């Protein structure tokens, strides 16, 4: 085995329609090392990975793998070269057994039938190596998120790849699970595996990487070995997102605090949530922090009428309690905007059609007719106001992720919402649109909405919220406001006992 780098990426570019996703990407991965690629979502990480995985073709540029120039025209070509890929959406089948997920489309045959015994034999060592003690015949859906992630990695490893690519593998994991994942990755590195690790969490990338490449707007802006990274450079990368959050706007100066309409929740329980009480006033952005399973998503579902409450009382500004259905919520100007764009967008329909979703689709008053002329007018207005760069008749699915999210927000703005529930509203979109959406959230609050914001990105919460409610295991674990709002404090509240602040994290890294 030579010591030359295993992978060279030179001047790779890719555009989708008029959108430049990769402009001039360069990357060198050394053998037997972990190379982290960091950048905001939308910077081009995922596309770079898809190019290497053969899912997306590059428009120009060259890729050299193992000293030879490679054309990766499809996923099979990548596999043959020895590139194993674990994508963000891992493409697993939750209803199928673990074994079936490990050998998708590559099931070993015995006399023409799939041999379960051989699958067990081939996966046993690997699973033990990954520290996975699971029943391989149980449906994958019964496993925890960390285990599922490791299964996805195991599936890639079964191919005996020489380069393992991981796209944001810890996005669904909490601290402890992330540590477990990192331990596995370090073990693989010890066996000589080369890895490309893409992430938008800088701290995690710094903890695991030997080399680091920062990418922004489809270009590599910095590439260095981890040890050579100066603290000032580290700080610079960390501050990339600083300017993202707009300053708070002055909210409703005419109304005194007590007179402002408010959302009062007392003793609310349902799903994972139990006995939660708080109040939120108009003009306020209240952050909701919590890991998966903390009950935050249940809270949002309850307030939007998507789930039934088990206990407790809620009083909305219009004087009524919880909506019984999502339709009732929409009619009472309670809106929910999710980062899961599949839940919000009709891809094959025009922007104008999408914007009529609530005004025409949900309401049962007003005209019984759907007027295309009015829909176009509505679309023209929102396209102008939210700077969606497209025509009203364009299918919503052809917009960039940021544009799609703006369409989803715009359809709710059309009804003048009273209560706005935001569930990771800026997930997976580029920085430019993120800034615009953050500004919109501020505007909504300033115009008298009650805004509840949930996000997994703690910086988003601390950057936007007036105060933050932290949830842990279904209960309200604490509230922080003003100068107390920083990521470390928050992490302690939402994951007590698992994260002892940043100092601890770096010392642990030193040991490993």
């Amino acid at each position, binding site marked *: 085995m030579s010591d030359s780098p295993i992978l060279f990426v030179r001047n790779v570019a890719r555009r989708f329609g008029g959108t430049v996703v990769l402009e001039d990407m360069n990357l060198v991965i050394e053998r037997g090392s972990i190379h982290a690629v960091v950048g905001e979502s939308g910077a081009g990480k995922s596309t770079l990975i898809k190019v290497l995985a053969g899912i997306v073709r590059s428009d120009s540029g060259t890729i050299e793998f193992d000293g030879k120039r490679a054309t990766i025209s499809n996923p099979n070509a990548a596999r043959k070269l020895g590139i194993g890929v674990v994508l963000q959406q891992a493409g697993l089948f939750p209803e199928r057994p673990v074994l079936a997920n490990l050998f998708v489309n590559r099931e070993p045959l015995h006399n023409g039938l799939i041999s379960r015994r051989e699958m067990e034999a081939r996966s046993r060592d690997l699973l033990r190596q990954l520290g996975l003690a699971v029943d391989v015949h149980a449906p994958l859906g019964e496993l925890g998120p960390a285990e599922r992630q490791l299964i996805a990695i195991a599936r890639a490893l079964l191919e005996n790849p020489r380069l393992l690519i991981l796209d944001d593998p810890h996005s669904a994991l909490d601290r402890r699970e992330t540590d477990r994942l990192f331990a596995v990755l370090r073990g693989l590195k010890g066996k000589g595996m080369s890895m490309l690790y893409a992430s938008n969490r800088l701290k995690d990338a710094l903890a695991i990487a030997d080399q680091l490449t920062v990418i922004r707007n489809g270009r590599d802006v910095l590439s260095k070995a981890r040890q050579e990274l100066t603290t000032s450079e580290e700080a610079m990368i960390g501050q990339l997102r600083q300017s993202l959050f707009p300053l708070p706007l002055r909210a409703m100066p005419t109304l005194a605090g007590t007179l402002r309409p408010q959302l009062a929740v007392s003793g609310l329980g349902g799903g994972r949530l139990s006995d939660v009480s708080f109040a939120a006033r108009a003009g306020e952005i209240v952050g909701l922090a919590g890991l998966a399973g903390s009950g935050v998503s249940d809270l949002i579902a309850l307030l939007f009428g998507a789930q039934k409450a088990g206990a407790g009382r809620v009083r909305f500004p219009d004087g009524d309690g919880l909506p019984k259905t*999502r339709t009732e919520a929409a009619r009472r100007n309670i809106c929910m905007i999710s980062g899961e764009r*599949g839940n919000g*967008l009709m891809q*094959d329909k025009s922007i104008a059609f999408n914007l009529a979703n609530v005004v025409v*689709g949900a309401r049962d008053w007003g005209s019984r007719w*759907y007027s295309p002329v009015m829909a176009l007018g509505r679309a023209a207005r929102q396209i102008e106001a939210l700077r969606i760069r*497209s025509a009203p008749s364009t299918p919503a699915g052809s917009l960039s992720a940021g544009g799609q999210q703006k369409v989803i927000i715009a359809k709710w703005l059309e009804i003048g919402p009273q209560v706005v529930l935001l569930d990771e509203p800026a997930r997976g979109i*580029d920085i*430019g649109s993120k800034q615009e959406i953050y500004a919109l959230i501020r505007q909504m609050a300033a115009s008298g909405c009650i805004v509840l914001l949930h996000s997994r990105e703690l910086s988003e919460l601390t950057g936007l919220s007036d105060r933050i409610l932290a949830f842990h295991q279904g209960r309200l674990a604490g509230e922080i406001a003003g100068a107390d709002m920083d990521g470390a404090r928050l992490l302690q509240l939402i994951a007590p006992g698992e994260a002892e602040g940043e100092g601890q994290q770096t010392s642990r890294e030193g040991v490993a």
Partner: protein
Amino acid sequence: MTRTDTAPPLAGSANRKPGRRIRLPAETGAAVGLAALVGLLGWLQPSFLDPANLSLLLGQAALPGLLAIGMVFVLTMRDIDLSAGAAFHLAAAAAALLMIAGIDPWLAALAGIALGAGLGLINGLLAITLRLPAMVVTLGTWWMIEGLSLVAGKGQTIAPPGANSGFFTTLSGKAFAVVPAACIVFALLALAMHVVLHRTRFGYRVQAVGSNSQAAAYAGIPTPKVRLLTLVLMGAIAGLAGVIHVGAQGSVAPGDGSSFMLLAIAAAIIGGTSLSGGHGSVIGAVIGILLVQVILSAMNLLDVDAAWSTFATGALTVLALAVDRLFRMWRNLRAGHGEDNLLG
């Protein structure tokens, strides 16, 4: 596309400029095909254009055509109703039996339509309470309804008396001596339903649910109600077609309408209604059913063995699906989203 140097390069945020291509209606392909086929047949076999033949053709197209109108709504909602043909037959049989029992034919007809709507209601309630696709539910109810009509008719032709009452003379009559009454009902209903699908709140909701039912639910669209109403509409239209059949033919035979469900689905697809939901065209379905009937009638005129007609209908449906799919793939490729297909 060029980018100016002054604008900050925000990767991902610049959208493709809207194209200036003229957007042809989805029905264009089917309409051109129909016109070409009629022209070709008129040239090959002038007797094809005889008023008598055209009148027969229109009469044959009207009843499955009515079902196709309802089917467009169901398909647009990204569902499928397999029981429509059976509902047609049961409604016809029930109306005929009520007439035999001495009830006024018009009232009996109304009861037939109500029965169709009721069957749709049962389909709908099953689909929304069990949260099953209508296809699964109607696969079951299809056989149940078919069984009921066999029981009701005892496997015999049901011929109600009073062939010269107003009901029968109206429905078996012809406007301008050529256009059967059923055709007029078909044409009027098609126009009305076209407006309903594209210009009313109900039609909007049907398209929204079909395009992305998850997003529709999250936007507050009452999706269960929309599904229920659409299936009731389908049932009522099947009932209407059934009673028109009784009026026009004067009797109901056991095998009547057995091919209608598949014809209706084929017509809707040929007319540009997408099986993946979200898009539908009533006018397209009208063109579609005419196209199917023209082909069937042409095979008859050109002395092709009748057994081949079923094959031809199927082949045409596959052709329409292939053309639609290829067109979409080509358009996606041009829009630069070609990799979508690669993933399946």
